[in-house]
Structure formats: C-alpha cells, structure tokens
C-alpha cells in the first residue's frame, strides 16, 4: 500500500529538480497589475516594480527611463524613446568594447542595431513606467513570466529574477546580452554565415541562438521551421528599425555613464566618470583657493577652509559638502595639490538629519528588503524589532537625504532603505546595542589577530610608532572609519604610546576578523 501511495505521489507530483525550470505561476509576484498597448514603451502587462527592486533606487538612477503615463502619450513616447534608445546604444557599445576590445567600428554598428532590434522584438522597448496612480511598474510579458526589456523568464532564470537582476534595467540588458554575444561570436562558424564580416546573417544567426539555443543558429534559413516566425519577426524589426521613428531630432538625450549605471553600489551617476578614491597623504596646500566652490582632486571633492582641503571620497555626498562649507554648488577646478583631511559621510552629512554613523546600533521599525547593494540583488528581509550595527551609510542628498544602511543579517551583508530626513524614524531608530557586534566600540577590548602583529601609527595611515605583537589585548579608545571601503582604524594605547591601528575593511568584503578579535 505504501508503494502505491508513493507511486501515486510521483504520478501526480512529478519529480522536480533543484536545477532547471521553476514552475512559477502566471503573473508570479505581480501586484498592482496594469495593462498597456502594443506600442513602444507601454507594452502589456506591467506589475509593481518594488517587488524586485528599490523604487527609490530606480527613481534616483533610472528616472530618465521611466515612461510617465500621466503625460501626453505622444510627446512622452518620443521623450522616453529618445532616452531609452540612447541608453541601449551606449550599453550595447559598452558591452562589446568590454568583451571584444578589438571590435571594428563596422562590427560595432551592426551589433548595436541588432541589440536595438532585440529590445523591439522582446518588449517594444518597454521596461519601467509610472502610472497615473504614481505607482512604479515594470513590464511583464508572456503571462507575467517575461520580465522587462529583454523578457528574462522567471521559470528558467528564477534565481536571477528573484534576486532582482531582471528588474534592474542595465542588469536585465547585460543578462540577455551574455547569451546574444555567445551567439554573435559563434555565428561565423556556422554554415549560414559565410564570414565574420557577414554581419547581416551574423545578427540573424545570433538571434537564433538567443531565441532557440545553440542548435538554432541557422534556423532562419528554414522557413518551415516551427519557430520560423520568430526569425522573420526579428528580421522585420532589424530591417525596418521602426523604433527610430520615435526618436526626437531636437531632444538631446541625457548623457549616460554605463559603468556607473551597472554599479548598483553607486546611487547616482553623473556624465563624467570619477576616478576612484586615493589613499590620502597629508601635504598642506601652499596656495589658498580663490573661489568658494567645490574643488576636485582625482576622485575626491574638496572644500578649502583654514588653508586645508577638506575632502570627501563619495561624489554623491557633494550636497553635504556644499552645505557644510557654504560653497557654491559648482565644481570649480581640479586642484593639483594633495588634500589634507578626508571626511567621512558622517562628518559632512550629519547635520540636522539624524543620520546614524558607522558603528552605531539601530532597531528596525518596519520590514524592509536587504540588498547586496542599495539597488542590488535581494539577500534577505530585515524585520521589525531586529537590532543591528551600522556597517556603512549611503545617502542621497538630492532625494531629501534618503539613506541606506549596511548591516549583517546571518551570513548576509546588505543594505536596506531607511527613509529620508523627514521619515527615517518610521524605518529605523538608534538603539543601545545589537545582537551581533562587528565593529569594536570605544571601551571594548580587542586582541591582535595578525600573525606578525600590527603597526601602531600616530594618525590613521600616518607615521609608524611601533608594532604591536600578535594576540596582544588592548582597550579601544575610539574608532575612525575612512574611505569608500570603510577602512577601520582603532585608537589604542600600547606601552605608553597612544596611536591608531588599521583593523580591516568593513565592505565590500569585511576583513576585520583578519586583523582583530573583539573580546
């Protein structure tokens, strides 16, 4: 009888694999569903974007690529298409340059056209849109299984979709281009593509691989193939380029920085690439600045005060710098001398907005998603009442000081949205302790974890005083956290010398345990 029951179970509930297809329901995780029309930018259907990505992140980073349905459709479509077409072209170029630095300009031209044709074929170039109800939605085709611009399918790409990769416009595009590029590169070896420079057939063969798998490269040569209509549709779009009819000749699209847009750690992307921060070497300036504007030194933005340059390493904190030093909000010039004082986010931004600092403790006031980066992949959910230590702070000045805190839940490090300067208490409040302490606080004790000891320095990264041997136990007098990777320095006293010891980075990969053990 047991065998019969087991057998019946197998019959009606077929074996499922951890790998492969996940049988998500039609319109899985679809709230606020709305329709659409088969035109550029508004293809049906659409579901709430917030299920898979932070709305604040989308509004901040991708605002130009949100179709606003409350505006006149005709003019809004032209605006949207002008922006999106430019973004797709730039992203396609970025992708091919990265994968194939030797690509010729002719290859690039055909590649970009092919990528645009796929976005037309897959979604009518539709991704984000904001309804008259002001809700942000993302396109969901094929009974809700296809997500966004490139229709990433939640049944076959469940993990990526569930983590939010398909909801991020650039991630969605790159995810699909990985497959198209594979077809593009393998196409010249197929019988239906005579040479590498047969770009027309190469684009069609690559589409076959993209749409039907590796064996479908030459599918387009068989008009009787079951899926021949897909190849014909792609060809029609590739030939017609009808999207170009919606692109304004007078509207100049917003400049894009694809590297920055692809970096979900950064909250805003200007048009000018900013160099990464440098290790600061103190060197007093000899000439005072003449203008009260923001100054630039490599990746740092600086203000001159009292003959010293006060700099920040995170460009998105520029507004804080402007406010703190009463500067004119313009970048005046690049300075050639080295900056003196590197300020932390807390130093520059913590005026009147009650921003928590790295090392502080907080209590969660409402359930909110925990993401790998502020707009990145979903890792977990932090829940009401849970307490954490703040490991990093990211703020968006242009959005009312909205903020994200980095915390560790279980084995996951992640950021959660914690409101803006007006409503942050509804999201998280300061607490006196947390379940897990990852950064030592003043008054606590640590032991040196390095095998060869750690240098004690006069200032963070300053002149060496001595080396503190391994396993020495010390009382923490204070902590200093600097730089974009949140380098932790602890102030201690060893054999009568007060000084600072490097104690690891906090993120993106925490290395504190390699340097100290919190006792």
């Amino acid at each position: 009888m047991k065998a019969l029951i087991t057998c019946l179970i197998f019959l009606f509930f077929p074996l499922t694999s951890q790998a492969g297809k996940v049988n998500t329901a039609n319109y899985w995780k679809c709230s606020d569903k709305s329709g659409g029309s088969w035109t550029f930018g508004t293809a049906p259907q659409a579901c709430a974007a917030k299920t898979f990505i932070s709305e604040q992140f989308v509004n901040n980073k991708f605002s130009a690529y949100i179709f606003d349905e409350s505006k006149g459709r005709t003019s809004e479509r032209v605006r949207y298409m002008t922006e999106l077409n430019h973004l797709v072209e730039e992203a396609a170029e970025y992708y091919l340059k990265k994968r194939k630095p030797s690509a010729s300009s002719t290859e690039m031209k055909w590649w970009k056209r092919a990528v645009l044709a796929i976005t037309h074929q897959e979604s009518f170039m539709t991704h984000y849109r904001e309804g008259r109800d002001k809700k942000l939605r993302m396109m969901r085709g094929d009974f809700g299984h296809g997500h966004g611009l490139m229709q990433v399918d939640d049944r076959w790409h469940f993990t990526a979709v569930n983590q939010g990769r398909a909801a991020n416009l650039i991630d969605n595009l790159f995810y699909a281009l990985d497959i198209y590029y594979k077809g593009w590169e393998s196409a010249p070896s197929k019988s239906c593509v005579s040479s590498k420079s047969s770009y027309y057939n190469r684009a069609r063969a690559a589409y076959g691989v993209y749409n039907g798998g590796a064996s479908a490269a030459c599918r387009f040569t068989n008009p009787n193939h079951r899926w021949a209509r897909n190849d014909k549709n792609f060809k029609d779009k590739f030939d017609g380029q009808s999207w170009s009819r919606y692109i304004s000749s007078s509207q100049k699209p917003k400049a894009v920085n694809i590297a920055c847009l692809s970096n979900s750690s950064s909250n805003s992307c200007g048009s000018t690439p900013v160099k990464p921060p440098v290790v600061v070497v103190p060197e007093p300036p000899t000439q005072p600045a003449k203008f009260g504007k923001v100054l630039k030194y490599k990746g740092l933005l600086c203000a001159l005060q009292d003959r010293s340059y006060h700099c920040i390493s995170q460009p998105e904190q520029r507004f804080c710098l402007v406010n703190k030093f009463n500067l004119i909000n313009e970048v005046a010039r690049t300075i050639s001398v080295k900056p003196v004082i590197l300020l932390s986010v807390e130093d520059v931004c913590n005026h009147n907005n009650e921003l928590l600092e790295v090392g502080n403790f907080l209590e969660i006031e409402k359930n909110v998603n925990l993401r790998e980066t502020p707009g990145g992949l979903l890792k977990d959910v932090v829940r009401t009442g849970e307490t954490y230590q703040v490991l990093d702070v990211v703020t968006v000045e242009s959005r009312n000081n909205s903020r994200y805190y980095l915390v560790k839940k279980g084995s996951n490090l992640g950021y959660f949205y914690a409101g803006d300067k007006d409503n942050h208490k509804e999201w998280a409040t300061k607490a006196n302790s947390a379940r897990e302490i990852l950064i030592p606080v003043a008054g606590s004790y640590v032991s040196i974890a390095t095998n060869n000891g750690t240098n004690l320095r006069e200032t963070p990264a300053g002149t060496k005083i001595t080396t503190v041997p391994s396993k020495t136990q010390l009382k923490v007098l204070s902590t200093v956290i600097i730089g974009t990777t949140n380098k932790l320095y602890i102030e201690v006293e060893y054999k009568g010398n007060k000084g600072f010891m490097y104690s690891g980075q906090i993120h993106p990969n925490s290395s504190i345990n390699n340097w100290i053990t919190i006792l």
Partner: protein
Amino acid sequence: MKNNVNYKKEIVISLSALCAVSFILMNLQAPKNSNDFQEEVAKIEKTETRKPASAKKIKKLKKASNEKTFEEKVAYTFDKIRGVELCLEVECDYPDNDPREYSLSVYKDLSMRITKYSNFWKNSWSKMTTKDQEFITGLLKHDDGFVKKEILSLLNSLPSEDTGKYLGAVLNDVIDYHDSQLIPAALVFLNNTQTPDNEMLVSQRLSAALRVGGPHVSQEISKGIHNFISPNTAFIYEATLTSLPEEAPETTYLMSALTEYEMQQSGG
C-alpha cells in the same frame, strides 16, 4: 467481506502496476524520428520496459538493480546520461512549447541525472578512472548553467589532491562562460586547487575574465578575488585595475582587495 478484501487487493495490485508502467513511461524520453538513436538507447533501456509489467516483475527488477556492482551502477548511470545527451542531437519527447523549452528541458533532465551520478562517487573517489574524469570534463562543456552547477558541485567534493586534473576545464568552461551564478562555486574550486605551480595561470585567467568577461561574471569574480592576490600575482591584478572602467563594480571590488592586500603586506 472476504470477496471485498480480495477485490481491494486486486485494485491495489492493478493500480500499482499501472503506476509503475506509467512512471517508467513518463521517465523514458522516447525519440521521435531516429533509427540510429533507437539503436543507441536500446541497450540503455535493457533493464527498463515499455511493456506492461506486473508489480512482481518490477520488484524483481528492483532487486536485480540492487545487486549490481559499483561499476555496473556507474556504467548504468553513465549510459543514462549519454542517452539524454543524444536528445540534444535528435528530437525526443521533451516539452517544446516555446523555442527554448526543449533544450532547457533536456538540460534539466541531464542535470538531475548528473546529481545521481555524483552521488555514486561520494567516498569512492579512488575508483574513478581516466574515462570517468574525461566524462566529467566533457559534461562541463555543455552550454547550460544548471549542468555546469552540478558538475562544479561534484568537483568541489573531490579530495584536493584530485582537483588539479580539472583545472583547465573549470577555467575554460566556467570562468570563460557567461553564467555569473556559477562563479562563487568556481572560485571555491580554484582556491582549493591553487598551488605555487599554477597560481600564475589561475590569476592570468581570472584577470582576463575581469577585463573581457561578461559584466556580471567580472563582478562576481572581483568579489572573491582577494583569495588570489599573493606576492607572485599582485602585479597582474594591479595591471588589470588600470584597464577596468573606472566606476564599474568590478573596479570597486578589485581596488578594495588590492588595498587590503597592501595593508597586509605593510603590517597595517
């Protein structure tokens, strides 16, 4: 009452037989149009039957299966995997409702069978032959992330002295592939396999993937790159950093790893 019991017994037996036959039929992926393929799989299906079978016969078959030697079990699973692989070349009975469903379904089946195959080897690594190793390396070439994931899982359970044989395959077919979800497991494998003799090769290939790999692959590699920076390889990554896009995520992670490495070298 007695008749009733017999009647119930008959129902149970009939249903059992029906279930067993249906189950076998469901799990056999019959080819549609290839005589060659029919011949190929005929030997694989020797122990299975499409004819109605009694519960007794099924039990007998099961018993026979249990009596197989380790080598026979491996060979049986090996043949089952080969049978599924052939379905990538000829049409079998897998769903085909959208252009990709067929091949993805074959790969799904393949990855399930690889899981079973992997289970045989646990604690029996010493019995693995060159043929088995070549078979595993060949499976890693399949253009499917789920199949590669299963193989990586198998490789990560190997004793560390046996992993070097697969280094080239992992570099070629995982690091150079486009599925970023495989990278964390691949980096675990590479970290376990890294020796003074091959660390330059590993770092050169990781560096290449950072520069010209897919954006998501580059990003995932950069997250774990700190384990591969050593006095012998640091210069490779320092050179790589200068060629990466300035605000790309892989740049952030690599720069962070190099900074941490420099701090370690200087004693903080």
